[in-house]
């Protein structure tokens, strides 16, 4: 197991209460695996990433039963230890809108070189060799290292950021919405390069996005996040073909596909809950068309309904009925 997260909680203090941005998340990522985390805005994925990367402000309270990387517990490490040993060397990040993460006044190659030299004592020639190799690895010509960010297209900048994340050969790369905002042909190219990279580097990827088709295409294992909790978690094919959770069912039906031109698109009415209010029971209950009174009493357990397939719901016994009804528009309209 490369990374094991058990019951991770990140709570922010604000003036009138506590925001439970991440509230009991358990995820396991194996070596050489792509774990896709699907979630819409406000589900807590940014906070989750920041918690793992130690980028949360001091007002946040973080605790977990386990937050392990290669068997080592990360939480007790001091910030300095984390920065020296883990950050970028073992766990790296391709942030959202990576295009905007590049400093416009420095050449791209130099920024890459800086990232390398901060962590590894290579001389100039070695660093240059490494940056060229990294560029080639993402399908960019080595000469382009001399360019400035504004001379790159959006897709090229994204690939440069991926190159930067690979600089120190990490074991885990976290990618936050890597293809959002990019055109479909550029997106296809980047994901193709990513697959090629995985062949060579054996790094695991923690891919976070709201784009279900990207998740479907890239992930070995998928987690569905909502309001700070994981609603369903399983291997890719299993999650799509044997879906249990109402939210996942809703998402599947909300996503258009050009191969299913006749399928009716269904949206889930309502909006994500206010995370500063204490919510007894299931966080999805008030939007769920299949919710009963008991759903709001107690927090549902993460049931292992099948081997390695976890569902955060107490009504898994009715799943056949749910799967049928979820495909009908009227099911979702009456829930609000």
């Amino acid at each position, binding site marked *: 197991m490369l990374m094991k997260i058990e019951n991770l909680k990140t709570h922010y203090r604000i003036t009138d209460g506590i925001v439970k941005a991440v509230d009991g998340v358990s995820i396991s990522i194996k070596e050489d695996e792509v774990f896709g985390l699907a979630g819409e805005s406000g589900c807590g994925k940014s906070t989750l990433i920041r918690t793992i990367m130690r980028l949360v402000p001091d007002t946040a309270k973080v605790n977990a039963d386990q937050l392990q990387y290669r068997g080592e517990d990360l939480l007790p490490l001091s910030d300095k230890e984390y920065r020296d040993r883990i950050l970028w060397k073992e766990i790296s990040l391709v942030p959202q809108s990576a295009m905007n993460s590049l400093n416009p006044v420095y050449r791209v190659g130099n920024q890459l070189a800086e990232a390398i030299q901060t962590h590894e004592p290579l001389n100039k020639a070695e660093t240059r060799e490494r940056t060229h190799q990294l560029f080639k690895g993402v399908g960019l010509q080595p000469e382009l290292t001399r360019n400035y960010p504004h001379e790159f297209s959006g897709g090229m900048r994204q690939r440069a950021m991926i190159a930067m994340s690979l600089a120190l050969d990490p074991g885990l790369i976290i990618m936050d919405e890597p293809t959002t905002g990019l055109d*479909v*042909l550029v997106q296809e190219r980047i*994901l193709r390069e990513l697959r090629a990279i995985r062949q060579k580097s054996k790094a695991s990827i923690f891919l976070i996005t709201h784009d279900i088709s990207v998740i479907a295409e890239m992930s070995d294992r998928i987690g569905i996040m909502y309001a700070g909790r994981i609603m369903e978690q399983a291997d890719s094919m299993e999650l799509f073909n044997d879906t249990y959770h109402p939210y996942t069912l809703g998402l599947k039906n909300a996503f258009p596909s050009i191969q299913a*031109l006749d399928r009716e*698109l269904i*949206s889930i009415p309502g909006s994500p809950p206010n995370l500063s209010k204490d919510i007894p029971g299931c966080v999805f209950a008030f939007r769920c068309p299949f919710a009963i009174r008991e759903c709001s009493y107690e927090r549902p357990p993460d049931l292992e309904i099948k081997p390695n397939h976890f569902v955060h719901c107490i009504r898994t016994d009715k799943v056949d009925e749910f799967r049928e009804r979820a495909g009908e528009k009227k099911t979702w309209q009456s829930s609000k």
Partner: protein
Amino acid sequence: MAILEVEDLKQYFYINPGLLAKMVSGKKPSVIKAVDGLTFSLEPGEIMGVAGESGCGKSTACLAISKLREPTDGTIRFRGKNISEMSKKETMEYRSKVQLIFQDPFESLNPRFNVFDTVVEPLRALDIGNREERRERVINTLSIVGLKPHAYLDRYPHQMSGGERQRVGIASALVLEPELVIADEPVSMLDVSIRAGILDLIRDLSERMNFTCIWVSHDLSILSNVSEKLMIMYLGRTMELAPTREVITDPLHPYAKALISAVAIPDPAYKRPIPDIRGEVSQPIDPPPGCRFQTRCKKVMNICEREDPPLIEAKPGHFVSCHLYKPGMEATN
């Protein structure tokens, strides 16, 4: 009669080289041909999707059609009248008939205006109706877009979700009861689970309120679901224009083929084929003569580098701009 006719629309932007460049190398001003010969027509009540990658000119074309920017060349006719020849009064009338829905629900609302202000503003600006009439229209429009008026009238943008804000934006466009609505990526910044609601809303309203719609998006999956006709643009030109189903199932233009084959499917078993295309998206700066797609087309021929392919009807109702095709016949390949 067609409600909108666009003929050979051109929007060029000129960049002046620096003084030094001019003196040293005699460099002439560069021209960005954002829209370069766009031609199409719309029948009343149609929903036409416009697809294309960034830089294809679709948003620029919207600005020209909604008269927010003067085109460099070409004609745009609304119900037969050339919009560049409109007087100030006629332009104001045009505004009440042709409206825009914007992409960003967070940016398209004035943060200082509450919902009532935002939705009533078009009526105030164009001096339509009196106090009571305006209030009534606002309340009606809010109900139509699915927002309970009395709950929302006093709210400010920061007190609403993305989906709610977008509905307010739609309401402020529809309060004028326009005849043509241009929607520029209206759902791309919304959460997936609420997109369908807005898609349905716009589609239903176009029937109920009887307006024609141009829906611009880079997401073919969304367009395939909502539009009847689909136009694919590349670097400022129409590449293909046909009923949506036909474009998706049987694309003719090499670009359309590549684009459609590259669309991701939410199915883990699906393997995306490598699109039959080369190179990167080029910028519409100082384009070479001939077909815009020549630098990326795998089927490029000599003629493509010399002559612009005209928009021809390769199959009934199915238009394509490519030298591989002749009117009425399909290419043999």
